[in-house]
């Protein structure tokens, strides 16, 4: 009896706090929401006296909709009829007024709603000004890709002026100029500059303004709720148009990459030290990318208009050469091409190829872009664009592999014959598998044009030839003091085979399954 009493006491004394602990944990668990707005407006006037208010926007939109109210309940329109995205005001006047506006607006509405018997929000200080917010934002950035842009142009019947505008300095007004359309972000930056509002404000004002108007007119409209644009799940639901017609802004199809500015005189033949012109398939690159901003990060002009040969203030002193070759900048040719190499089918070979810091694999790679000009056959003078197109066409044909009988079918590797039988490497099968991977990829085709280029994946650091050196030609004893970077032969094989398989996601044979490659003796 006493034992039972003791047990009960023990359960009471230990069990109950345990349950409470779990409950606290549940309470403190953070909820992810895309519509979280931390109201910290008072920050603009100085230090906050209380923590920012946790405000869930979509919850309020929904509640107001049930009461048959719309955005105007909280967001007034300015003198031009544009909806302010501030709460019940156009501008932040003085701190007291703004604070009162929130306190009065929120508390009055919450009280009225509660009195009417509906579910309502808090009215006490600490319930809004939460010290430890239980909600965290997982709001995703939203962008207008090609597909979404196309859907908008279609719905708006090609009325570009609905969104696109430029500022007329003389008239001090916004106007639409045909052919001058560009990304909103070219003018609207992270913060407001002079009379140019910040990108965030511009997008919300333009997008939601239009969506609401169309909704009122009972036309096809886009979303007004935060989550429909900014939550990861809802973003996946946005309809994607596969074959988007080309956006026309007078851009070229095929062009030689410009190296001189508009009025810059070309160098005389004696002084010309420029590289061979690079033919560029502009149209194809439009298809590869989702927005123009991938390359045209500041405007839609030619690269050289800011990135001059010598470098200029307007191009951030980045020279044309750097703007094309900077291997760690996503906007540059090589930078973007390098980013493609992380795909499994590329990484198998490319991860292991010795890279100079400049990003070039070797000098012969320059010729892949800076092509030798085509010999003029019929003596006629061709337009540059035509010539560029011809040169590009010559690059599109897949590499002609060495004839199969020239590629060894099986290569026996006998470096571990003291423990195992010879490893029989299906050499030709591997070459052919790699050839197949290249054929599906235009970028790969362009850069693997030479029959032997592919072989460089394994036969690296040697000249391109039909019979490249064997692994053992360079790799021998391990840990040679004067060649610390070069692995010994056994490690060279293992690193090459296992490394490539791992990077390409080839799971079998497992790296630790010795007898899968070299059978037991």
């Amino acid at each position: 009896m006493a034992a039972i009493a003791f047990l009960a006491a023990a359960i009471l004394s230990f069990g109950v706090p345990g349950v409470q602990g779990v409950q606290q944990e549940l309470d403190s668990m953070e909820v992810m929401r895309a519509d979280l707005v931390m109201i910290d407006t008072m920050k603009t006037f100085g230090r906050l006296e209380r923590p920012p208010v946790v405000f869930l926007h979509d919850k309020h939109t929904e509640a107001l909709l049930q009461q048959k109210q719309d955005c105007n309940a909280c967001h007034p329109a300015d003198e031009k009829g544009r909806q302010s995205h501030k709460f019940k005001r156009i501008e932040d006047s003085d701190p007291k007024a703004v604070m009162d506006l929130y306190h009065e607006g929120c508390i009055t509405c919450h009280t009225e709603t509660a009195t009417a018997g509906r579910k309502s929000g808090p009215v006490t200080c600490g319930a809004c000004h939460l010290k430890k917010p239980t909600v965290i934002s997982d709001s995703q950035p939203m962008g207008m890709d090609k597909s979404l842009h196309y859907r908008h142009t279609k719905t708006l019947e090609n009325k570009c002026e609905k969104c696109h505008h430029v500022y007329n300095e003389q008239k001090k007004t916004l106007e639409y100029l045909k052919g001058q359309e560009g990304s909103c972000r070219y003018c609207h930056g992270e913060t407001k500059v002079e009379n140019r509002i910040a990108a965030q404000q511009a997008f919300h004002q333009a997008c939601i303004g239009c969506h609401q108007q169309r909704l009122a007119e009972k036309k096809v409209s886009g979303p007004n709720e935060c989550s429909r644009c900014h939550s990861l799940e809802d973003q996946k639901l946005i309809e994607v148009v596969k074959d988007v017609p080309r956006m026309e802004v007078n851009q070229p199809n095929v062009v030689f990459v410009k190296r001189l500015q508009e009025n810059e005189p070309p160098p005389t033949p004696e002084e010309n030290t420029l590289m061979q012109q690079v033919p560029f398939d502009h149209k194809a690159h439009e298809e590869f990318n989702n927005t123009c901003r991938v390359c045209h990060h500041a405007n839609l002009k030619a690269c050289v208009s800011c990135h001059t040969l010598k470098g200029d203030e307007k191009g951030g002193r980045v020279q044309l050469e750097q703007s094309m070759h900077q291997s760690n900048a996503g906007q540059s040719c090589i930078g973007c091409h390098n980013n493609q190499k992380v795909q499994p089918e590329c990484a198998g070979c490319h991860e292991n190829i010795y890279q100079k810091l400049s990003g070039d694999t070797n000098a012969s790679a320059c010729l892949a872009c800076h092509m030798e000009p085509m010999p003029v056959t019929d003596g006629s003078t061709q337009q540059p664009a035509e010539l560029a197109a011809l040169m590009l066409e010559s690059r599109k044909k897949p590499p002609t592999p060495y004839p199969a009988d020239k590629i060894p079918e099986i290569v026996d590797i006998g470096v571990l014959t003291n423990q195992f039988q010879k490893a029989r490497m299906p050499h030709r099968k591997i070459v052919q598998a790699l050839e197949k991977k290249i054929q599906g990829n235009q970028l790969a085709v362009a850069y693997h044009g030479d029959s032997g280029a592919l072989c460089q994946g394994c036969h690296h650091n040697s000249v391109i030839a039909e019979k490249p050196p064997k692994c053992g030609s360079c790799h021998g004893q391990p840990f040679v003091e004067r060649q610390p970077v070069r692995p010994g032969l056994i490690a060279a094989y293992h690193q090459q085979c296992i490394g490539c398989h791992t990077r390409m996601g080839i799971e079998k044979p497992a790296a630790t399954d010795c007898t899968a490659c070299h059978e037991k003796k």
Partner: protein
Amino acid sequence: MSISRRKFLGWLGSAGLGATLGKNADAASNKHFTGYPDISGVLFDNTLCIGCRKCEEGCNKVNELPAPDKAFDDLSVMEAPRRTRAGEFTVVNRYSGVPDAGGPVYRKIQCNHCLEPACASACFVSAFTKTPTGAVTYDESVCVGCRYCMIACPFEIPAYEYDKALTPRVTKCTLCHPRIIKGLLPGCVEICPTEALTFGKRKDLIRLARERIQQHPGRYVDHVYGETEMGGTSWLYLSGTPFQKIGMREDLGNLPAPLLTKGALSAVPIISGMWPVLLTGIYAISKRKEKIAETEKAQAINAAREQAEADAKAKLDAALKQAQKDKEKEIELQVKRALEEAAKAQSEAAAKPETKEESDG
């Protein structure tokens, strides 16, 4: 026993001088050891490790260690983290589910062969030696089995042969010191199929590690573990994931362990050498102290007693005096009152003599 304090301190001083002049106390002295030139080391690159346990097998073979609990080709042992043990100088642990790693990550554990070993500085019989080859070797013939080295090691490497009742030893990786001096590779390095382990001069390995980091941007954490940790170690590590994620301590700092403890530890040889002298001295001093204290105590008690007696007497005297005074006052008062009453009675009698007579009559 009569040793004066002056005499004892004199002995201690001369012993200290002798100890600093001695050769063996280097590890714990205030000399800064900058490392032997051209020491060897091993670079472990975990982006090349495939987790095959061959290094464990190689180590076991060359060191003639007992057969493992589970065969070396049984990779299931990696499911739980392991540490070095008496019969296992090296173990490889697998870390699955490391974020952004894209697969399991491996970590090899063995003695790091510090440039300034904590184990050596903690050992009061100098059983550990940092040799010019880079290896930290252990001399079982002098070891007393105190296992201070096991506590001192920041990497938790030295193990102890608890199962041997009579001849237990501390065990750890030797960097295959006997093999290195013969020009052979350490057992683990020799057997590694992918050269995830590279043997060479430590300074070359650091250069190699830096080159690998530079050649493969994004593949490695930009840090060579062991280059500076605890003053530098002969084993160096490259990793594709943060070292902390694979259980490697990043809170060790760059100071060698002996530098951190030299103040306290430099006194150890002096004290252990001068043990009898020290004890005798302490005994004599404390004895003398006790004696002095006793005398002082007795004196204090006497003084206190006298004081108390004097105080009591003075108090009594004062009280007696006061009592006397009070008594005199009282008598005076009584006399005065009696005289007054007598005078009053006399005058009343003079005013009514008849009445008195009548009543008498």
